[in-house]
Every structure is written in structure tokens, then in C-alpha cells.
């Protein structure tokens, strides 16, 4: 039943006075707009570690600045790298943090830090930001996964100690629908197959009920079957999108990913990450970042315009960040290396304050520490608080150790509440 059929069906039920047969009368959560809507999260993941100097924190005309020029933006006093003219027009809806500090300068460890808010440990895997949101505030009306990773990602967001059912559902080539969604046979044979499956499963579960409850096999099978039948699946497929919309986002894997992300959020998906690879510019940093910007600029700006037009930005936190920044010093290969102290992110939406610029890095590159340093943990506390999650909540992990959702403190300037 598609949305319209469902609505007229419900109206028909109401007309017959059969209100007891109806689900709760409040409007479907996915149809709510503005601040009344349940909060979601879109992370634009800049894989490889983007250079703050070639994105949101340029220092033109200095020794460390390289050839990158700066342009003005709609945010008063904020200049960003020249390669982002479209984002410059939209960035006042969000804020820029220029002074993130972490201690992880390795790709895998940095990614872990920037996806979970914790340093890696050998005994425990922490849940990613998206999986905390899904764990704490699932959308019961959703028939497709609540947590989705779009694009090729080496380390997609994981559920950590919540378990694999909270891992992001991975779609490597977004926009072309999902594969493995069609049953291999016609519906009457599929019905026979499912009936057979039920018969054989029952035999096995005899005496193994408690074992079976732990495996989630039956649960995931039902979720998969529900998903195969769901009309929400269309969110994954861009074939009906207007050409102009597709063009605005850019005809790239990442551009399509951002558009699919918006469509998923609209259906009520809680957390989506879209990965853009290619920021690890140890050599040829400036050309590399120009190429990256040509993909990021249209996609990011189109996403912001779209979310605003659909009144989704007030309920959607948008975070654009990678595992770390890159060194102020330019190496002999014209590249920049890993730099986890004083790097940038763009953050906003979901009720966060926009139009701010927090922190400052040293234009001479001599001082590693930025002014007003913001530990990565604080970014996580900010996002969780904005999403309505009690970030001080402690859970007992499977190894019996209590663990808090975030060790940070919210960044007061960004909060409106």
C-alpha cells in the first residue's frame, strides 16, 4: 500500500466509525516538518582527512597557505577556500569550527575517534554517533534500515557494543536502488518457500528458543522481508528524480549519495553517512583538493538548499568532517600530512545555531594548538544533545564495564536551548 492509498484507506475506516481499527491518529511522524519532526543526522564523511587550509580555514598569502585563495561567504567575517563558491552561499545556515583537537593521527584510529567520539580500545568497540541515535530514538514506522552508509567506505559506522544490528546498512553505489531486493521467484512460489522455511525453522527452534533469541536470525529475516515489500524502498532509487535536481547535486557517487540521504531522511531514516574518498593528499595537495571540491561544493550546497526548502533542516543535524586535518607545513611533494590538532568541521541544522565561526588556527603554522581548542568529545556531546539524546547516560557494556555515551561537554555557543 503506498502512502496515498494508505491515507484514503484510513479515511475510509474513519468514515465507517471504525476508529478502533486504526493506528494512532497523530499524523505520521515522517510527514511532520520543521521543529516538530523527530531529529535525524546526516554526516558527510570526508575520508582521508581533508585539509582545513583548502576547505573551511584558508590562510591565503601566508607561508603555510599555499596557492589557495579565500572567498567571502554569507556568514559575516567567514572566508572559506575559493573552491566552494556554492557552499559559500549556503554556509550561514551552519557554523564552522576551526579548532577541533584529537590525539589520533592514524587513518583507522582517527576514523574511529571521529565516528564514535572515543579513542580506540582493544577490549571494547564503541557505537558510532548514528547508532547511538538509532538505539535511543528509533523510528518505529520505518520499514527500511534506520542507519545507512552511502558510498564506498573503508570503515563504515558500526553499532559497537550495541551489536551488529546497529551497524550502518551499506550501499556502495547509491541512487540505483538496492540489489537483492527481488525474490527470485513469483509470489505464489515465494509464499510456498516462506511456508517451507517456517516449517523447518519451527523444528529447529524446539528446545532452542533461548538460543534463537540471541541470534536475531528470525528477527532479521522478518525485517528483510518487510523491507522487500516496503514502498519506502523508492528512497534508494533516483530514476524518477528530475534531471535538474540530479544535476544540482552533481553526477557523482557522492552527489547521488547526498540526494539519496535527503530522500532517506524524508522517509524518517535516523542516521545517514555519505562518504567522499580521496582527501589523503600527501602529494599534490592543491590539485587534489580542487578535484574534491568540484564534487563536494555542488553536493553539499544542493543538500542544504533542498533540506531548507523541504523544511527538514531544523530537524536534521548536518556534520561535514573527516578523520583529521592536514599539516600547515607543505611537504616536498607539494602535499600535506596528517594533522589532528586544529582542524575544521562544518556543523549545523537540527536546531543548532548557524552563522558562527569558532576557534582560530595560527596563520604562521608555528603553534600547533589553536585558540579556543575544542576537543572532539565536545562535538559529540553537542550533536547528541541536539538530537535529544542524553549524552551522559551510562550503559553497562557486554564486558560489564559502564560506559557513558560521550565524555565531552556540549559547545555552549552552538546550542540555542
Amino acid at each position, binding site marked *: 500500500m503506498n502512502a496515498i492509498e494508505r491515507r484514503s484507506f484510513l479515511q475510509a475506516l474513519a468514515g465507517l466509525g471504525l476508529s478502533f481499527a486504526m493506528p494512532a491518529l497523530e499524523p505520521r511522524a515522517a510527514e511532520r516538518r520543521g521543529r516538530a519532526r523527530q531529529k535525524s543526522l546526516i554526516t558527510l564523511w570526508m575520508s582521508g582527512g581533508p585539509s582545513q587550509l583548502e576547505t573551511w580555514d584558508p590562510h591565503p598569502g601566508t607561508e603555510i597557505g599555499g596557492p589557495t585563495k579565500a572567498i567571502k561567504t554569507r556568514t559575516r567575517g567567514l572566508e572559506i577556500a575559493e573552491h566552494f563558491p556554492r557552499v559559500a552561499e549556503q554556509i550561514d545556515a551552519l557554523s564552522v569550527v576551526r579548532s577541533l583537537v584529537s590525539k589520533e593521527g592514524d587513518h583507522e584510529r582517527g576514523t574511529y575517534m571521529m565516528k564514535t567520539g572515543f579513542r580506540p580500545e582493544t577490549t571494547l568497540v564503541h557505537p558510532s554517533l548514528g547508532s547511538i541515535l538509532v538505539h535511543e530514538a528509533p523510528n518505529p514506522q520505518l520499514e527500511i534500515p534506520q542507519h545507512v552508509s552511502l558510498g564506498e567506505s573503508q570503515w563504515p559506522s558500526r553499532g559497537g557494543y550495541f551489536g551488529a544490528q546497529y551497524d550502518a546498512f551499506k550501499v556502495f553505489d547509491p541512487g540505483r536502488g538496492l540489489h*537483492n531486493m527481488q525474490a527470485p521467484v513469483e509470489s505464489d512460489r515465494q509464499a510456498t518457500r516462506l511456508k517451507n522455511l517456517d516449517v*523447518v525453522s519451527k523444528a529447529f527452534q524446539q528446545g532452542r528458543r533461548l*538460543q534463537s533469541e540471541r541470534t536475531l536470525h528470525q528477527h532479521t529475516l522478518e525485517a528483510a522481508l518487510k523491507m522487500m515489500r516496503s514502498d519506502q524502498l523508492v528512497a534508494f532509487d533516483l530514476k524518477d528524480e528530475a534531471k535538474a535536481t540530479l544535476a544540482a547535486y552533481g553526477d557523482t557517487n557522492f552527489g547521488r549519495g547526498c540526494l539519496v540521504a535527503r530522500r532517506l531522511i524524508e522517509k524518517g531514516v535516523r542516521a545517514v553517512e555519505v562518504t567522499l574518498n580521496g582527501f589523503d593528499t600527501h602529494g599534490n595537495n592543491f590539485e587534489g583538493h580542487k578535484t574534491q571540491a568540484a564534487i563536494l561544493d555542488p553536493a553539499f550546497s544542493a543538500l542544504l538548499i533542498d533540506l531548507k526548502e523541504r523544511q527538514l533542516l531544523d530537524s536534521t543535524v548536518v556534520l561535514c568532517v573527516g578523520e583529521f586535518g592536514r599539516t600547515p607545513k607543505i611537504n616536498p611533494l607539494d602535499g600535506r600530512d596528517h594533522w589532528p590538532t586544529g582542524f575544521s568541521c562544518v556543523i549545523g541544522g537540527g536546531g543548532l545555531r548557524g552563522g558562527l565561526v569558532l576557534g582560530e588556527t595560527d596563520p604562521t603554522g608555528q603553534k600547533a594548538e589553536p585558540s579556543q581548542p575544542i576537543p572532539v568529545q565536545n562535538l559529540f556531546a553537542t550533536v547528541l544533545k541536539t538530537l535529544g539524546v542524553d549524552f551522559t547516560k551510562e550503559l553497562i557494556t557486554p564486558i560489564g564495564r559502564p560506559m557513558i555515551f560521550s565524555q565531552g561537554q556540549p559547545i555552549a555557543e552552538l546550542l540555542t536551548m
Partner: protein
Amino acid sequence: MDGVRFVAARPAEAHDLVSLGFAMKLRTVVIPALVVAAVFAAVVGAARSTVRTHRNAPAVDASDSIRTAAGQIDDWFATRWRREGIEPAAPADELQVLRRLSLSLHGTVPSLEEIRQFEADTGPDRLMRWTQRMLLDTRFADYFSERLARGFVGVDTAPFLVFRRDRFKDWLAGRLRENAPYDQIVREIISTQGLWTGTPASNFVTSAVVENDVDENKLAGRSVRIFLGQRIDCAQCHNHPFSHWKQLQFEGLASFYGQTQVSLAGVEDKSSDKGEPIEYAVEDRMTLQPRTIEPAVPFHPEWLPAEGSRRERLAGWIVHPDNRRFERAIVNRMWAYLFGRPWHDPVDDIPDPTLDDDLLDIAGRDFRAHGCDLRRLILVLTSTRPFRMASVHPAGDADRFDQARREWAVFPMTRLRPEQVIGGMLQAASVQTINQQTHLLFRMIRFFREKNFVDEYGDLGVDELAEQTATITQALQRMNSQLSREIVQANPLNATGRIAAMAGSDDKCLEVCFLVALTRRPTDDEKEALLPQLAGKTKDERTNAVEDILWALFNTEEFSWQH
């Protein structure tokens, strides 16, 4: 066109054009062709059987001694169950145990051919002899070397050029085929010198190369974690929060790798360079000055050999006959590979040995007494009561059941690894045993299919022994993927086609479906529900009915979980 004139007038550029054309051809034609050739060669190499397959299960020479060792373990468990008032599960059906063995040792379900042979074997100690036969089968070395390699060097194939994981894995498979003593294997892994291609054990060191330098910390942490089952990695930065490891001890261990260098000549140990002694130094956190660290072990320095390179001495200390952590670590790991769950979880952070013997000590002592024989260890562990027990337990409430599960009074259900699922599906679809003797083309298809399926199913890498639940992606893949369609859809060569065409009566047909997929016969309820679907069906209709039954069997929890 003026191409000719162009060539005549500008020979140098024409030459460039020719080479450009060649370069393009290289990219579009030659390289792919080379890749195909290389893969083909690799598969041919892999398919070439170096070992005779034992068709009939041999008599186990040491069966009495193995039974005695397993009996000691059983006694230990029985005492615990009695003390805790736990009722152990009933013994599992022997076919069920055969399936477990086949999945853990070969990564696949038993073939119909093997099931028939097993059932025809009426001699004593059938299961033990069949375990022995599986251990002698080259599929064991192939599969187990991959599992062990995950622990030893992880799953990454980086660092590129100096690390050859494939060589390491093949070398390990060879050592398993020769049944080399485990302490000897570990010595070679830790202390080998030479090139990563020619002496593949050296890849343990090169797997920890970071920007042309050996990462001593990584190697020290890994050595203790894998070979002694203790995590001291955190002592790299601070003292272990709840154990006794100190940062100084960690640095002392790292220093054993402090003279190890990697160059074009391979991995070597040098005590001096141009007359200057090579020392291992770290930056002191307080003074920020380099501080020289002498190699030192955290306990029992008397086990440390006086002679040899630093790495040889470390290896000698790790495998020293009195170092109980060594056998405890490998017993816990083997237990995990066989039961899907380590005896002590996590697999590589085991409590210190105490005066009280636990399971790891009992099995470990037997392992040491028999020359660190891995095959024997597997024979002993798989002959124990916990391994041969049902996964069904009478406990009705969750607390009682959890207790039984914790105390190994019921066989645990664990998610099969992706290649076990795929191996199982492919094996079930083939009736005959897929092994080294199988037709090359068949194995090549299997190689490619497995790889794609495993990538999408999700490989857990080094976390493979952590408890896992099912995922939606996996359910979709088993139900609807191209591979599952191909396997289920009947053709003259696969099981579906043959079962439909040749199994005979409806009863026999259903039985064969259950045997190939689930290694058991259908229950009465299942017969009652499923036989009518075959009744009176011929030709295409019958094929469809068989497909619909097999599809259901492949999608059960019973198929994709170890139980």
C-alpha cells in the same frame, strides 16, 4: 590523411604516439590479460594437490591416549556442573557432530558422498577416526592456516610490497600439513630472518612495518596477545588498568624487536651499524630525551636463553616449557575455532595461570607432553563431552539457560563465518566432495563466487571471535542474491537438478535435500508438511518443488549457524 607525412617529419613524436598506443593497449588489453593469467596460475597452483587424500578413515594410533586426555577434561567439567547444579545437555546426534567438525575444520558442510561413507562406517570410534581423516585432508591445512593467519598477522594486505600475506598463509598451510610442532612454528614466526617472499614466516615482522620502519610496539603487543594470550598493548601508554602490566615491562619487550630492520635484503637483526651499537630508545615523556631500553621480560628472566638474536631469545622465552601462558593461549584459541566461542572471552586476554588447574591447563599439559602437536590438541578437544553435546537444552528459563551456556553444558550457537556459509551452500549444491581432486574449472568458479559473496556478507576480520548476531544484509543475500539463485536453480550438474531427476521416491528425494543442506533427515512434522509438495509432481514441477524446499533449507537459522 597526413599521418604518413606527420610520421616522416616528426619521428620523435611519432615514436611517442606509438608508445602511447602501446601504453593504452597495455592498460586495456595486456594488463587485464596478465591479471587473468596470474589469477589462473594462482588457482592452478592452489588446486594442485600436494597431499594424498585419505579416502578411508584411518585407525587412530593414539586413540586410547586421546580418550584419556579428553576424559580428564570431561571430569573437570562434570565436577563443575555438579557443584553448580547444572544439568548438561544430552549427546548430539553423530551426524550433527560430523557437521560441526566439517564446518570448523574444512569450512564447509559434509558432502552427501561423505555422509554416505560415514554412515557406512560401522567400526568403533567412528567420530574420532573421521576427525583424524579430516585433519589429514588438505582442506584442513588450507582452511586452518587462514584462521590462524588472522590471529598472527591480521587480515590487511598492507603494508604493500614488504608484506605478503598470501605467502605467509601458504607457508603456514604447509607447516600444518607437515604437522610441525606449534612451538617450532612460533619460533619461526617470531625470529626468522630473510625476505618476505623466500622465507614467508618473516611476514610477521613486515606486517608491522610503518613507513619503512619496524613498529616495535605493535610487534611486542601482538606477540604477547597472540602467543601468550594477554593484552599488554595498553601498557604502551600507561599501566594496565586492572592487571599487573607496567609501561616499563612493555618497553622492555618492544626492545626485543629493537634491532630488527627491514630492507631490500629482507628482515634482519643487526646489533651494530658502522661500528656503532644499535640500541632501542624511546622518548621519555617527562624529559623528552631519548632513553635507551634494554630488552627485558616481565617475569621469569631465567627462561630467557643467553644466546641468539634478540628475537630468537624472545621466542625462546615465549615457548619455554614452563611458560604456561603459551599453551593456555593456543588451547583457548583452538577452543574458539572449534566451538565458535573462546573458553575465556576475549580470546587473547586470559587470566594469569594459578595453582588451580583449569581447562586450559589440563588440555595444555597434554599438548606440551605430546610435542605441541596441534592435530592431537584438536582430536582431544573434539572428543570431549562439551563438543559432542547437543545445542538443545532442557532449561526453561533464561537464567538457568545462560548458566548452562556459560558453563559449556550446552553446545553454543554461533554465527558461521561468511566463507562457511558460502562453502556450505556450494558444497550442498554439488553432492560430490569439493576438494583438491575436483575439476579445476569448478574450483575456479568457487574461488570467484566465494570472494564476492564474502565481501558483501561482511568479513569480521580480526574480531571474528566476538559474539555476532545476524544482519539484514545477510538475510537478503541468502534469500535473493544471484549466487543463491544459481545454487538453488536446478541444472543438470548441481544437486537440485540431480535430486529432482534421480533421487527416486518422494521420501528419498526429501531426505537427500535435508542431508545435503542440513546433514540430517526430515522430522515427521517436516515430512507431513513437505512431502505433499512432491507428490505426483514430475519434470519441471518436481524440479520447482525441490528448488522451493532447498531454498527454504538454505535460509534457516539451522543452515547458517553453528549448532
